[in-house]
């Protein structure tokens, strides 16, 4: 018996929420390595940006649209684009595994082939249209609500309210409006995804087994066919990511305090003994040549001096006194 009482919101939430948590550990590992490698810098609204980036079945196309069209910048670096690209196969796998389990457990229907890919592209398409709308509407409503709450409390009768109370009242006013709008729009979005999933389920054929057999089936679905291979692959993946992380992690703090900034030290070129020996030999040979040239020059000068001396001496010497 399939569970017909399931609302589209419940279906959408059931699949998207589980798929998000299934894919999160893998994407998170890549995100950390990219940050350690200095490939990714997330800017303002960090938590939101990070969550949206990791909730990629619906944000993979929506975030670039929001960044381009609504002047909202989530960050810089090639790592963000690489993470989005890597997230595509991870999300297809996660939606596939969650979708198959959900189809069996909740709809009691045979999951169709390629379910992960179908759910992924449909969720991505809904996200691409719906998330920018949510972003625009919530931003507009929030800024309007903030200014309205501000003007309301600027009125003469509320002038006496102390700062702490004023902050809390203002926050309650605009925060509730903003939260309600966000929640309603998110529920509509999730419900849209749920309707699409239900449409896919209606086309699937029902399962004939009893409940216990279905439980065993979906349970075994999550157990890898070759457990040894899966464990080895996971361990190797973990080792590679750990090595990459520690190799690229800065040894000293990337944010030094004013008190402890290190002076810029010029790095000495590395010492290469063979090259240094060859260089020294060349230099010595050159110096030897120079010395011998100098010696030759000096000898020549001495010679010239020796030759020229008697003549010069003769010329310079006063005439010898004549003997009496």
């Amino acid at each position: 018996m399939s569970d017909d009482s399931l609302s589209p919101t419940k279906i959408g939430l059931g699949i998207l929420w589980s798929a998000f948590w299934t894919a999160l550990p893998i994407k998170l590992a890549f995100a950390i390595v990219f940050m350690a490698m200095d490939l990714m810098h997330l800017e303002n609204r960090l938590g939101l940006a990070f969550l949206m980036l990791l909730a990629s079945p619906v944000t993979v196309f929506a975030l670039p649209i929001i960044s381009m069209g609504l002047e909202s910048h989530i960050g810089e670096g090639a790592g963000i684009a690489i993470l989005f690209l890597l997230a595509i196969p991870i999300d297809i796998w996660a939606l596939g595994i969650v979708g198959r389990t959900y189809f069996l457990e909740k709809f009691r229907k045979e999951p169709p082939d390629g379910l992960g890919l179908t759910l992924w592209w449909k969720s991505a398409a809904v996200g691409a249209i719906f998330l920018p709308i949510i972003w625009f509407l919530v931003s507009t409503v929030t800024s309007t609500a903030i200014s309205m709450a501000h003007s309301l409390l600027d009125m003469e009768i509320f002038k006496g309210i102390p700062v702490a109370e004023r902050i809390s009242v203002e926050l309650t006013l605009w925060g509730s409006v903003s939260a309600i709008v966000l929640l309603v729009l998110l529920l509509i979005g999730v419900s849209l995804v749920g309707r699409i999933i239900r449409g896919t389920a209606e086309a699937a054929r029902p399962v004939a087994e009893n409940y216990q057999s279905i439980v065993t089936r979906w349970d075994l679905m999550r157990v890898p066919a070759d457990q040894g291979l899966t464990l080895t692959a996971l361990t190797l993946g973990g080792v590679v990511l750990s090595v990459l992380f520690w190799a690229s992690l800065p040894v000293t703090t990337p944010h030094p305090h004013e008190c402890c900034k290190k002076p810029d030290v010029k790095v000495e070129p590395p010492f290469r003994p063979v090259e240094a020996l060859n260089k020294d030999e060349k230099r010595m040979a050159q110096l030897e040549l120079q010395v011998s040239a100098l010696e030759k020059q000096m000898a020549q000068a001495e010679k010239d001096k020796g030759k020229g001396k008697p003549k010069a001496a003769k010329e310079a010497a006063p005439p010898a006194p004549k003997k009496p």
Partner: protein
Amino acid sequence: MAQSSLPSTEPTVIEKVVAFVDERIGLKQMQAKMLNEPVPGGSRWAYVFGSVLLFIFIMQAVTGILLMFYYVPTADHAYASTQYIIHDVDYGWFLLSYHFWGSTAMVVCVFAHMSQVFLWGAYKPPREMIWLVGLALFGIVMGFGFTGYLLPWDQRAYWATTVGVEIMDKTPLVGDFMARFLKGGPTPGQMTLSRFFVIHVMILPAALMGLAGLHLFLFRAAGPAGPFRGTPEEIRAKTDYFFPRQVWKDIVGMAVVFASICALAFWEPVVLLEEATPDPGEYHPEPEWYFLFLFQLLRLKVFAGEFGQFLGAIALPGAFMALLAALPFIDRDPERNIFKRPIALISWIAVMTAILLFTVSAIINREFLD
């Protein structure tokens, strides 16, 4: 010939060692008892918080021990040694930032774990003792946060502790003694640092280990509560053992938390303010983020004055904790489904909203102070 082709039945060295230990302490029985615990309704992601908390505590202990190799708990060296860890020790900045964000993760996971137990109705008989020990563990985690905050000995640490101890001073009967004991003098100084250090690295870890052990023992004695929804047939069909599925979920949960703490250590590594002085100067004292809601609450006019401060800082939180402790004895309805317990659901939403509202208000309030 035929005999030689048979696989060797000679036990390996490891098997011999395991058999030796097993004979003496009943290792295999212990392992079976730990891993073959039936989980009613099967494994769930919602059950990972307890194991994740244990993992965070172990990581905090490891990073804390590594930091202690360099940290000097004296008023004239605490700041310099912390700066040394950040600027000179290889990967010291990362270790300290991990330890700092690890404490935040612990508070978040304690809140999540307590919320899960509350919403699942898992505090109801026969699990009252588990709930009470859990509340004591919550207090210890908060104590870790409070005592650890002073150790870097910068302006933030010094003034947050000053404010915290002043709040404690307002407790009737024991407040004055506690404040004098913690400060060890008229103003925070060497004695305060020594006492906070000893409490942070000796007393609280020992208390946490003892109580966490008791918590686990009581949990195993009462058994898991299981889901609050589903027919007995469904729950029976889905019932599974702790190993391997719940163990796998716990491992994934730990990996996610580890990666999240690493990410936070990258985004916002620990950066100290100026060294602690008895003059706050331009600095506006503020506690750690998980005490911000209480700090903002005390700024409200209704909590002004000596009595108001006592009401907001001691009476209200004390009454709330007393209510939580009495909860399993007040709420005798066996119904566990949160959607059939409207008072519990509304109360939980109201408390969470109030905490969020006052925390955000405290952040907005900074602009007015600057």
